[in-house]
């Protein structure tokens, strides 16, 4: 009816290659952007932003990063928490060392630093594959967290060993530090997420994304048809590190405000982001959003229902959350190994034929 290619004539190659070839998708995309940029900032309050929107935006960036590495290039990483810590500490060092430069530059630079670190730890991936690599990335996780805890230079010799985000502004509006408005933080992260998603989507559609997928599907075969595994794997680690670093920097500077490597960027973060992309869908940018939304909203929902409505103690609700998350992961893998994104794809296919499915 309304979800059709028919009647939407493409008259140039540019039209033919656009991200959303179906008109309805395109308008939906503009509508989502409009709501996110023009409506939500005016109606949000502190609770919504801090409990749901900020974590969702930031973890979406991290999930996109990990999805590029794991979902598109097939290199399983359990070091995401450690790489986010690199982004956070790099951002902190830049913020305190060059206060006169804009925070936007700091966040992007910390993404670059993380990319470099990520490439360094990604080098063994040329020899180590599969599980062995997953375990090898644990080395990055534990070593980096230890490094940030033990070397005082990283936390500017502060007595508590914590890093605290100083106040920084964009266009004279505070986005970090204690005196920020909810909507300003939201907008700041939203802009980053929008650009990251755009970049990621277009990278994965192009040559480089195809080489990643070739490596994922079978690395030896890819090598034989002329894909350079060194370039493909290293670029995947680099791009992934860039996004994960930005997510780490935002998580520390905008969302948490203060961080300590072991608490904020522990192994649980690595697993959290991994679960997001499994539930959302490996190898899909939309899946990264869906997975992040799911795992950010589920605990809030459970907490509201169990603690708020049924009056259970918080620790029981926390345990139940473990059971539900674990159970859902198993259920998803059994029913739909390709995650929420696959459900979405199936729904779209159905929608194209609706209301006459034959």
């Amino acid at each position: 009816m309304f979800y059709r290619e028919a009647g939407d004539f493409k008259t140039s190659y540019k039209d033919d290659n656009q991200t959303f070839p179906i008109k309805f998708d395109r308008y939906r995309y503009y509508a989502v952007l409009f709501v996110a940029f023009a409506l939500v900032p005016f109606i949000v309050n502190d609770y919504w932003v801090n409990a749901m929107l900020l974590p969702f935006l930031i973890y979406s960036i991290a999930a996109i990063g990990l999805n590029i590495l794991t979902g598109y290039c097939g290199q399983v990483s359990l070091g995401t928490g450690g790489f986010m810590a690199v982004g956070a500490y790099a951002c902190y060092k830049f913020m305190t060392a060059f206060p006169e430069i804009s925070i936007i530059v700091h966040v992007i630079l910390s993404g670059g630093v993380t990319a470099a670190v990520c490439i360094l730890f990604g080098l063994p991936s040329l020899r180590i594959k599969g599980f062995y690599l997953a375990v090898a990335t644990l080395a990055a996780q534990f070593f980096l967290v230890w490094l940030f805890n033990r070397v005082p230079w990283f936390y500017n010799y502060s007595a508590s060993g914590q890093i605290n985000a100083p106040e920084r502004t964009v266009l004279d509006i505070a986005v970090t530090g204690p005196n920020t408005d909810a909507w300003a933080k939201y907008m700041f992260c939203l802009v980053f997420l929008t650009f990251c998603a755009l970049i990621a989507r277009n990278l994965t559609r192009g040559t480089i994304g195809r080489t990643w997928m070739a490596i994922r599907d079978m690395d030896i075969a890819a090598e034989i048809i002329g894909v350079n595994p060194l370039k493909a794997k290293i670029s995947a680690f680099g791009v992934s590190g860039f996004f994960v670093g930005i997510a780490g920097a935002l998580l520390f500077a905008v969302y948490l405000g203060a961080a300590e490597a072991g608490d904020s960027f522990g192994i649980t973060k690595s697993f959290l982001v991994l679960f997001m992309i499994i539930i959302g869908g490996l190898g899909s940018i939309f899946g990264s959003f869906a997975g992040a939304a799911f795992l950010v909203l589920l605990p809030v929902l459970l907490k509201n229902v169990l603690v708020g409505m049924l009056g259970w103690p918080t620790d029981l609700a926390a345990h139940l959350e473990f059971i539900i998350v674990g159970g859902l992961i198993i259920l998803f893998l059994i029913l739909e190994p390709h995650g929420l994104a696959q459900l979405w794809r199936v729904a779209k296919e159905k929608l194209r034929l609706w209301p006459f499915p034959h």
Partner: protein
Amino acid sequence: MPEQLIFGMEVFLNGLMAGVLYALVALGFVLIYKASGIFNYAQGVMALFSALTLVGIMEGQVPFGHLVNAIFGTEIHGFGWHVPAFAAILLTMGVMILLAWCVQRFVFRDLVGQEPIILFMATIGLAYFLEGVGDLMWGSEIKKLDVGLPQGINAVIDETTFEWFGYGFFIDNLDIVATIIAALLVAALVVFAQYTKQGRAMRAVADDHQAALSVGISLSFVWVMVWSVAGFVALVAGIMWGTKSGVQFSLSLIALKALPVLMLGGFTSIPGAIVGGLIIGVGEKLFEFAVGPLVGGATENWFAYVLALVFLVFRPQGLFGEKIIERV
């Protein structure tokens, strides 16, 4: 003899003992991996779960007591009896066998033939699930586990070494017991795998699923059996670690420590798990002793992983693993 060397020797011995405990966890991984190709991340949580269950049964706790209290507003705290350790261990083993059956029936039966990485992620989900169930069933506070294993400094070693070097080594009795039990366990596993009908079926399945199926071996039975054996190994590991440091959440993190052990030894080799465990145990203790003070300590957190990472770059299949042959 110089003092540093004597201290080093003590550290070395303690490292060996710690390595045995790592190897115990790693053993469970190897068993399941060999028989079903599943890399069971939940092994550490299984150890935690079995230890929790053991304590719960011994103390006469009511399963899900907290939950029932919260929902119905009752005040149930315990049955008020104490089960002797031996009976409790048997009961816990029953629970682990039941768990093995459930895991096979409800999770992996539906995932047969999926890619290894999907199976791995399913076990991560299983780990979360079990952790939640364990906490919900028995409560999440730190518990003391005492099944009557000897603890404390071994006086004989202390005195002998004092006579030899003028310095008494501190070796925990529990570690010695753990070493003996681990040795017995490995011997028992080898006998089981080599000389019993079930063990032979297990090896056949490990070798080739389809061929095993075609000669009439029940895959689901073998898998349930393997998960039960892994549950038994987890129980032993849970008792050892639980007695040593209390039954608490961090117990499940030792599974992470077992990963570099496995990588070092190779995923498919039982001797590899033992040797890998010893190398990691000794390596991290000696490194902490020699280099730790220079760089701020707590190197034990990452040394094992970095060692395994560096090692793998040169030998991707580990010390004793089968050579990885890839074909297009």
